[in-house]
């Protein structure tokens, strides 16, 4: 089994707010991230696909295919967007790094026609990232 990783970058705005909580509770829990005008990040996404090496090509997958799927399924949905307002999943879920990673897993898992999605790693900043393995 070989693990192949590819990185992609996207930039997006978001803010953290739970409509079930009072304005005071939202400010207490989310602090500056609760500003309704939003703020932004340059996210770095690292997608890991696991698979066996094809004896004919010597490859687990064609990186062009993975790049294309990342562009179609993730970047077109999230890049240069206001996540709370423009991405359907975040009309209800709060677009924390955790929830964005889980959403990216959902967007990609069924679209990969090669290998098996192994891990989503999402950097919100170079010093803060989350990993999700699909369970």
């Amino acid at each position: 089994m070989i693990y192949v990783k590819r990185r992609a970058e996207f930039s997006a705005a978001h803010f953290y707010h739970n409509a079930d909580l009072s304005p005071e509770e939202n400010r207490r829990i989310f602090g500056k991230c609760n500003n309704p005008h939003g703020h932004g990040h340059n996210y770095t996404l690292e997608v890991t696909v696991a698979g066996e090496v094809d004896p004919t090509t010597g490859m687990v997958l064609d990186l062009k295919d993975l790049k294309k799927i990342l562009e179609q399924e993730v970047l077109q949905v999230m890049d240069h967007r206001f996540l709370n307002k423009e991405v359907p999943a975040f009309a209800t879920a709060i677009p924390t790094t955790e929830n964005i990673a889980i959403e990216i897993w959902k967007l990609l898992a069924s679209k990969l026609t090669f290998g098996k999605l192994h891990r989503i790693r999402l950097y919100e900043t170079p010093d803060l990232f989350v990993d999700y393995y699909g369970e």
Partner: protein
Amino acid sequence: MVYLTRRYRFSAAHRLHNEALDAEENARMYGKCNNPYGHGHNYVLEVTVVGEVDSATGMVCDLAVLNGAVQREVIDRFDETHLNLDVESFRTRVPTAENICLEIFDLLRVPLKGAGPGRSTRLERVRLEETSSNFFEYYGERDTRSTAPKVR
């Protein structure tokens, strides 16, 4: 389960020297690191917590709790110090990166228990970079990698 990792930095001096060994053995074992005057590193510390994402907040960990614990337990204790001379636990233990990893895990394990809004959050891993070429990882005595979802 989501794994959340945050990076921190501290700088410290140390000397690798074991009192139980003689001067030749120390010199042979630790080489340049046995220099009696010590030397220093810019350490990069990665702390990983794991837990369920809390449905009310979308978060696995309260970053203020994480930052507070690391600042209080690690940075305030280690940063800009000579580990052998200024940190109690390294008066008797050689401050190798391995031992620093173990010590940081011990210092953070309890403060990070239930550090997330969902309360299932716990410390998963401590990773310490001594230089950009050397790094060390510790998952606690109960190494959960065999039962974690997949090999990382």
